[in-house]
């Protein structure tokens, strides 16, 4: 399989015109999510979403790599949510995602938000 290099795709055909290239993530969407991250996020420089577009690629790549490792361990060919959850649990820097992957895993209880904090310890 052709493995894309670290920086592939971002300087294709004349370079980034600044907004979205063929492989970039949408900057406006990134900015929206950034603003939503806190009540007090006021202004965002134009470059910050651009850094994030690349950072998210790296993030997705890393998360996928780690998840796929779990899939392969199970001798499967389909990457499941549980594989993603395993990757999150196994990786220190993905600690902030632990509640997210265990939230989506538990539909059976009607959980109110404050209780989720305590559930963290069990995953």
């Amino acid at each position, binding site marked *: 399989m052709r493995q894309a290099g670290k920086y592939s795709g971002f300087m294709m055909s004349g370079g980034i015109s600044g907004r979205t290239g063929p492989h970039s993530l949408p900057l406006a969407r990134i900015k929206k999510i950034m603003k939503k991250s806190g009540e007090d*996020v006021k202004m965002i420089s*134009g470059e910050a979403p651009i850094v994030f577009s690349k950072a998210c690629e*790296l993030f997705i790549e890393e998360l996928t790599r780690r998840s796929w490792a779990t899939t392969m361990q199970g001798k499967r060919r389909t990457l499941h*949510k549980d594989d993603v959850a395993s990757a999150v649990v196994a990786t220190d820097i993905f600690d902030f995602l632990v509640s997210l992957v265990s939230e989506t895993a538990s539909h059976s209880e009607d959980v109110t938000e404050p209780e989720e904090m305590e559930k963290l310890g069990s995953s």
Partner: protein
Amino acid sequence: MDRVSVLDRFRSNRNEKSTTALEPEQTNNNPDTVNNNPEAASPRVPPCMVREQDQYMPIANVIRIMRRILPPHAKISDDAKETVQECVSEYISFITGEANERCQREQRKTVTAEDVLWAMGKLGFDNYVEPLSVFLSKYRESEGSERNSLFVKREREYAVPPAVVPGQYGPAAYALAHHPGMYEAAAMSGYYRDGGAAGSTGGAAGSSSSSQGQSGVVGGEFDPFAQFK
């Protein structure tokens, strides 16, 4: 550990908000599948059957990036795709939260690319910092090559030593040192400045040379203002 307290604050921050980007109900596309307790499917607020897509990266983009990593025969389940989508949004929020806090501490209004890079380093994503720094410097180079050459010009005028690196961005400084053409420009772009370019976007003269009066036209090899004449 520092990161633990950050995580606690991050989580409590998200719990306080009335609408978080990633509420459990919204990910629940099939309330009447076997997994679910039927009673839970009829809550006080009817669960959104459709996920609000504008709080996530487009799923097609996410899948495309995932496929770069996976072997050609690999399949990805739908719930895995959605989970990765959610993780990306959470990642953005997480980093932005930290970057924003730093801005507030330093009484700056604008979250800059440098803040984002700093936050990533602090939160454990330091192996991203170098490739992102290179990416950013190349972006700046492609976007503002004329502006950058103007700053190089000014740099020579005022004889300010290019970026006395405060040492905050170890990997970044290392990366930029390999691009001598960009070195002064990056410095002048405020790349190394910690808050010096208060709120200005990349490309602004954030360096110690505060004088803006001079037009910058000095008889030299080239005239950066030639286009404006």
